């Protein structure tokens, strides 16, 4: 496996250079393709749904909300509400969550140099699941606290993992953090399982949350997670070149002036913040964090300069389409989105894995 070292930017300790023209081309094309796919996915997501709102009414319902246009629509209030208050926030939220999970997966795979790493590796999912379960079994009056509890649980789990994984010098190596993550996740999952079994009457609510709850997506959810996702995405994108350096190995990265532990801490903190925010409103949606980055790697190249931004856009498109399937394939029934991402994602991933680039050992 060969690492592609990035072009130099101000402040970067890395001195390796790449031809500027080829660098721009290699990022631009995948970005443009991914953005086009995202736009198509978003358009499909907004246009199609179990309510069967006509295309003109859908467009009208969207345009009336565009400032300064002063457009009037023939769409009924009901159809406008369906498009603007039910369907669109769901598409936007799926996009944000998909982007965040993909970025989280790519980041974890980079800092731990482990292709199987996903955003839930260090206990975010287990912690969020425990937080959500505690609120659900504590009684009905606390349901407003569900996202907060899931977020605190997710972040708390990763902090605990870091504390447990740190060696006596206070610094944590990659393998020790991974092992600590496994242990913390197992412990928190055990507590969560105990609580849900002791409160069997709430079992359905717990499972509904775990299997993904974009079904009740609203603008308030979007507003709730947007700041976290934005900050997280900014930090991860800013560190994409560092992730490329880490791929050559911790010692080598150190010799190039990069502090692997510091980079790991910053990247994990940012990825955790965003992932915890995403799962706090979406529940535990699997597979996105593994599929999106690997698909991008296999389709383009393995540099994080490309993988990070394109994975975000690709992850957003993937989850929007998965959610579209979840709400339309068996309409008016919902299919748990976690099931869709696994059923659709696993064969797709295998297909990509068997492609030419995989055989060439790019993965």
């Amino acid at each position, binding site marked *: 496996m060969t690492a592609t070292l990035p072009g130099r930017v101000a402040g970067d300790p890395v001195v390796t250079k790449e031809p500027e023209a080829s660098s721009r081309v290699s990022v631009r094309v995948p970005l443009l393709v991914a953005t086009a796919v995202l736009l198509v996915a978003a358009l499909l997501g907004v246009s199609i749904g179990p309510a069967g709102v006509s295309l003109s009414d859908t467009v009208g319902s969207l345009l009336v909300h565009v400032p300064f246009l002063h457009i009037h629509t023939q769409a009924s209030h009901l159809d406008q509400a369906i498009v603007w208050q039910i369907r669109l926030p769901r598409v936007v939220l799926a996009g944000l969550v998909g982007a965040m999970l993909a970025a989280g997966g790519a980041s974890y795979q980079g800092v731990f140099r482990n292709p199987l790493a996903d955003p839930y590796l260090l206990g975010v999912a287990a912690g969020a699941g425990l937080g959500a379960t505690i609120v659900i079994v504590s009684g*009905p009056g606390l349901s407003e606290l569900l996202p907060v509890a899931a977020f605190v649980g997710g972040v708390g789990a990763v902090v605990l993992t870091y504390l447990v994984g740190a060696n006596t010098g206070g610094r944590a190596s990659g393998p020790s953090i991974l092992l600590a993550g496994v242990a913390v996740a197992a412990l928190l999952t055990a507590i969560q399982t105990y609580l849900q079994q002791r409160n069997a009457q709430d079992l359905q609510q717990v499972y509904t949350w775990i299997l993904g709850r974009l079904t009740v997506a609203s603008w308030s959810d979007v507003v709730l997670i947007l700041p976290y996702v934005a900050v997280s995405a900014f930090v991860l994108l800013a560190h994409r070149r560092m992730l490329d350096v880490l791929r050559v190995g911790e010692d080598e990265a150190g010799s190039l002036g990069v502090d692997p532990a510091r980079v790991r801490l910053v990247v994990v903190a940012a990825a955790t913040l965003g992932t915890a925010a995403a799962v706090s409103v979406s529940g535990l949606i699997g597979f996105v964090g593994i599929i999106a980055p690997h698909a991008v790697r296999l389709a383009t190249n393995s540099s994080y300069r490309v993988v990070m931004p394109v994975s975000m856009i690709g992850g957003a498109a993937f989850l929007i389409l998965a959610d579209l399937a979840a709400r339309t394939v068996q309409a*008016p029934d*919902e299919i748990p989105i976690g099931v869709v991402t696994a059923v659709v994602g696993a064969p797709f991933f295998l297909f990509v894995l068997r492609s030419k680039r995989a055989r060439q050992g790019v993965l």
Partner: protein
Amino acid sequence: MNNHTTRRLLAAAVVIPVILALGCTSSPTAAPVAATNTSYPVVIHAANGKVTIAHRPTAIVSLTATGTEMLYAIGAGAQVKAVDKNSDYPAGAPMTSLDGNSPNVEAIVNYKPDLVVVSDDPAGFQSQLSALGIPVLEDPATSTLAQSYQQYLQLGQATGHAAGAQTEVAHVKAQIAQVVAATPKPTSSESYYYELDQTYFSATSSTFIGNVFSLLGLKNIADASADAVSSGGYPQLNAEYILKANPTYIFLADTLCCAQNASTVAARPGWSTLSAVSNHRIVPLNDDIASRWGPRVVTLLQDVATTVKAQRRAPAA
């Protein structure tokens, strides 16, 4: 768990006196106390096969809330020694910490039961109890009123209250017929959305609750469910479908579990456009009563009929 249980008990404490004050449902103490009218041993053909009961049980353990309500309704309450933690009705039932969902056999045996009533057997503990010579009667969730009546009769046979069971079945049937007769027929198609939780899980007409509601001539919007069979009659509906269906009524069976009410429904994004919201046709139900197929189904039907009558007598513009 304790908070939840406490809340349920408090809810029951509020609801029960209201029900008794209304005097329009079967009172748990009103059932006839019949003498043993079964000759033992008796063989019952229950959901779990042939169950032989050697003598009149005097130490019944009920691990099903509906079973507990039925036992008291047919007059077998005095023979009940322990009930599970969800059996919160009637008030005098000897509630314990026994868990009907994940029962511990030793904890059950500790009550020295001579009959155990369950609604299902998730852990396969029946064979263990049977090995100890303790008969187990399984009365699973029913999908029709007729099936629930069979369970009363079965419990009556098992406990020596066959006559009491027949009386109770006749009583419930008569009350249901009375409610239905007192409710005007719909002049136009009326639909409803039955909500099990705030993520839009619902129940189709193939379920017990759907069966009961159909008595009032209501059309269930969940019946369009593409996969009613594999979802067991409890599909998760899509929000925009519910809005588009614009049901005449919304019945909330998630008032206790999930603190839902007319205000929380109206506050959901887009839901204020629904006619059920603007016409005040949102009916909060007691989750516990709505999820059981016992004697309080009459109370449930009355709650629903009250709103249905109001709609039919003064249809919204």
